């Protein structure tokens, strides 16, 4: 009975000999990929109002199916229907930020303003002026008390003060008596501080020894004691406190909220702009981060939520407590904080899949192997019917067992080596995994975002307003990777512009010739003789909120109550963030929009894996010598100028070019098991 003794073993050998050991036959069937988002900082200027609605910092992303799994019905954008594709599982989220290894909170650069000056009232005469950081203060004495040597009414004529009530004054008195306003017989004076550009009195706090007196004060029972110190803090100026640790009683400054939200993309339903579902959420208490024992990174584990490849997801961090501002609080700018170097790392599981192969289907693939597999040769000799069952010999049962066992002993193989070569023999049918690499661009400017008002001053390499504004990020190639999709998240999130004070941040850029061009290329040149690039993907968005801007639109997402990107037809469909596809070069691929086939990326050895298939029908200039991926973004208005209208440019006053902490480029594809 040869089938009884050798049948199963022969079947096993057949699978091994065709490199067809499937993932379902394995105990461990899932690869790990992460969406790793790094934000240089999020500070109190992100909070545009005191309402919680404008404090949700958001980064959208999507995990589209790999090209071989991508299917949609063809109909008008906004009404497409997705097909069936493999899903992923969200396993864990970790959120970290830099606290300098201490249990304090990091002050931001609005903290306490900048100007600190000391003025004493002894010998001051009416009309005397004092300059603090370029702001001229003039002593003015109330007519009723001209003989009193004190500041009874201090006005200033500052040219750089944007908002009168952003000035905070603190007066210290050396006496042991607390300052009380309006109390008859009190020897301490109270003072009115007024901006001569605005006659309304501003909040003032008088303090000494922990006693505080708040409110808007008017002259009453002026005393005879001099002012010892007079401090003025101006909002919007760099504070020397920025970056320092604050251990004060503001223990709720790091009360945060994290949410992962889900929505149907505009591509499938153009009536939806708001996220529809919350996948997970967590309240991060400030007490977790202060004190001698800290949960930083804050980890949410064992989540187990299914992720749909045809949905948009939004990682959202609610930073409502970074700004301890309360209406009328004259000490508001003592209590503003930042999250520094935030990392949101989301860990996903995806079932292992077969790697890309074939010169005609994968661009830039090493032609020496085309991604195809060479199998083992396990030979099982099945004895003829009627033969005696033997242990040894060519058709012996033990011989067959040993041949199969040899495969387990030497371990089943599959995947790529780091130099893009493949193992001599492979057994596994599926050895690759979904991958997404998040690349930041235009991040960490001086205001966190770029405005038309300030771009020419704030960004390096910029000349005239019709010249481009460029940024680039480099990604080192450390393992073979097949690029299937490129998705960009264009950011229109506003902020409280501390430097762009003339026009602030009121809307998204609107110049009809304002363009954003994204390009992804392979590069060689690190410690090498040659320097070249191969283009992988490129698209240009022209004229925000026009058809040319939306040529490859995937989604629009609204995360705030006051979004800056408006469609002009109504408020309900306004949005803060966009997702666009940047199409791969070439043809014959799939995606939200027609694009090229997947592109293999990997370092080579010489002379084996350097020979590569064509990219976009021509030999790639990098010739298999790629060492890094370069991501570029160019913002430009070569016709009307990238700056604002009043300055002569093509964007409305108050336009933003890049939102708070810039844009994201997601490189999506397939990676293999290595090592």
């Amino acid at each position, binding site marked *: 009975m040869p089938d009884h003794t050798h049948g199963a073993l022969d079947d096993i050998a057949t699978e091994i000999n065709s490199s067809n050991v499937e993932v379902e036959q394995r105990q461990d069937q899932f*690869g790990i990929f992460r969406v790793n988002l790094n934000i240089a900082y999020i500070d109190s200027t992100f909070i545009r109002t005191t309402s919680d609605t404008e404090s949700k910092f958001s980064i959208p992303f999507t995990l589209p199916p790999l090209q071989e799994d991508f299917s949609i019905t063809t109909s008008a954008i906004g009404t497409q229907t997705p097909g069936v594709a493999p899903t992923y599982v969200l396993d864990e989220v*970790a959120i970290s930020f830099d606290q300098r290894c201490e249990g304090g909170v990091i002050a931001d650069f609005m903290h306490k303003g900048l100007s600190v000056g000391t003025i004493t009232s002894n010998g001051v005469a009416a009309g005397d002026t004092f300059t603090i950081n370029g*702001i001229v203060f003039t002593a003015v004495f109330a007519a009723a008390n001209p003989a009193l040597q004190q500041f009874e009414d201090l006005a200033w004529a500052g040219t750089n003060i944007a908002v009168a009530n952003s000035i905070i004054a603190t007066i210290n008195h050396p006496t042991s008596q607390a300052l009380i306003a309006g109390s008859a017989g009190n020897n301490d004076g109270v003072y009115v501080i007024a901006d001569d550009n605005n006659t309304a009195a501003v909040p003032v706090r008088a303090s000494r020894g922990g006693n505080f007196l708040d409110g808007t004060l008017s002259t009453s029972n002026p005393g005879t004691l001099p002012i010892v110190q007079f401090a003025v803090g101006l909002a919007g100026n760099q504070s020397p406190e920025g970056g*320092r640790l604050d251990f004060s009683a503001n223990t709720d400054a790091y009360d945060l909220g994290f949410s992962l939200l889900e929505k149907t993309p505009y591509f499938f339903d153009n009536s939806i702009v708001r996220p529809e579902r919350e996948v997970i959420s967590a309240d991060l208490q400030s007490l977790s981060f202060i004190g001698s024992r800290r949960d930083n990174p804050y980890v949410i584990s064992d989540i187990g939520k299914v992720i749909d490849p045809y949905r948009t997801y939004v990682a959202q961090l609610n930073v409502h407590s970074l700004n301890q501002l309360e209406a009328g609080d004259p000490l508001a700018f003592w209590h503003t904080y930042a999250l520094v170097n935030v990392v949101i790392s989301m860990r996903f599981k995806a079932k292992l899949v077969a790697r890309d192969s074939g010169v005609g289907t994968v661009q830039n693939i090493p032609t020496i192997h085309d991604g195809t597999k060479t199998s083992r040769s396990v030979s099982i000799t099945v004895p003829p019917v009627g033969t005696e069952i033997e242990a040894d010999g060519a058709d012996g049962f033990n011989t067959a067992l040993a041949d199969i066992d040899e495969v387990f002993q030497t371990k089943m193989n599959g995947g790529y080596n780091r130099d893009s070569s493949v193992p001599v023999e492979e057994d596994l049918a599926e050895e690759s995994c979904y991958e997404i*690499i998040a690349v930041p661009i235009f991040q960490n400017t001086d205001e966190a975002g770029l405005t038309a008002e300030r771009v020419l001053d704030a960004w390096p390499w910029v000349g005239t307003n019709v010249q481009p504004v460029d940024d680039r990020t480099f990604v080192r190639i450390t393992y073979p990777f097949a690029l299937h999709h490129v998705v960009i998240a264009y950011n229109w999130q506003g902020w409280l512009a501390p430097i762009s004070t003339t026009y602030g941040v009121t809307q998204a850029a609107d110049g009809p010739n304002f363009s954003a061009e994204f390009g992804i290329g392979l590069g060689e040149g690190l410690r090498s003789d040659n320097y070249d690039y191969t283009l992988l993907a490129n698209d240009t968005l022209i004229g925000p909120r026009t058809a040319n801007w939306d040529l490859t639109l995937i989604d629009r997402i609204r995360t705030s109550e006051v979004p800056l990107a408006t469609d002009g037809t109504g408020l309900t469909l306004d949005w803060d963030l966009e997702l666009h596809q940047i199409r791969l070069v070439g043809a014959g691929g799939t995606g939200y929009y027609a694009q090229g086939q997947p592109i293999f990326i990997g370092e080579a050895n010489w002379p084996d894996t350097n020979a590569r298939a064509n990219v976009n029908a021509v030999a790639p200039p990098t010739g298999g010598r790629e060492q890094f991926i370069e991501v570029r973004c160019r913002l430009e208005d070569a016709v009307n100028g990238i700056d604002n209208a009043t300055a002569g440019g093509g964007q409305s006053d108050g336009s933003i070019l890049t939102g708070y902490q810039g844009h994201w480029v997601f490189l999506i594809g397939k990676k*293999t098991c290595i090592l």
Partner: protein
Amino acid sequence: MPYRDQPRKATKEQFSANTTIDGNRIDRATEDVTDRFNDIPLADIRRRFVSNTLVQGWTPQEAVFYDVTANDQLPYHHFPWLDLYNHWRARDDSNSMVVDTTQTPTFQNPFRIKGTSIPGIDHEARLAFDNHPQGRQYAWTTTLYFSKPAVLYDWSIMMLTDVEHGTAASPQNFTYDGVTPPEGETAGDPSKDVVVCISVDNPFNPDRQVYSSQVVARNRFEVSRENVSLNALPATGFADFAPTVFGSARFTNALPPAGMWMDLSMNVPVPRNSRVRMAIVIPAYDGVVVGPGSWGDSTSAIYYPDPWYRMKPGSQLSWLEEIE
């Protein structure tokens, strides 16, 4: 070599001539092999790690100097670079009007990153002219958490330079000051003042950095030797891609990357539930005792330490995670 009681992996059954070979044993052996083949354990798979990567970086703000007379407030901040030495607290209320040199003995980790000492910086010294320390160091620190074992295997650190970050008179070429270098160093020599390191927090006392384990450390290396390329990359004659960077009247050709690009190949196992910290540390010399070198502009009438604007920083950490 671990002990095993028999030489096979798939089954314990062994058959040889002149021994029994009844049906039960054959069935058992076949079943063992088939079961294992249909439920292959991880130990039977040769390649079982996939790589994951964290990409970080930005282009720094235009380097302008604070000029009190013009009330010029740029640049605005230096995040995410934070002072290495935990010593001064932020003033937190209006009563704290003293000069900020009061030592607060309540810091848990005053020197929060190990192995960062460099010549020319003394955090605890107080200079006579303004009572400030002799220089500072600023760290860009990133923290990751690994709930399952992982292997850190590649770290690329970039500090790319061009004429915009630095000036012709004060370029960023990673050299010591030409007049007052740190003690023991030669004026104008390649500087050795960048520190890169990775540490793993102690699992029993993760918030005390004195107990952390430093698994990767590079200090006192010549920064300029970790260059993008020994030969300056050509400004013309190479295949570029769209958008051709800086293709404007100001820069007629794309600027090839220059400066430091260091690739660290590692093989650092990280146990489960580990908190891993990466740090890149740069210097800000005081400017008087030790000149700023290429980390500041000593040609400016108002010296302002601005090391964080004098290069384009980038970092990419890659690590392996096991399939599951």
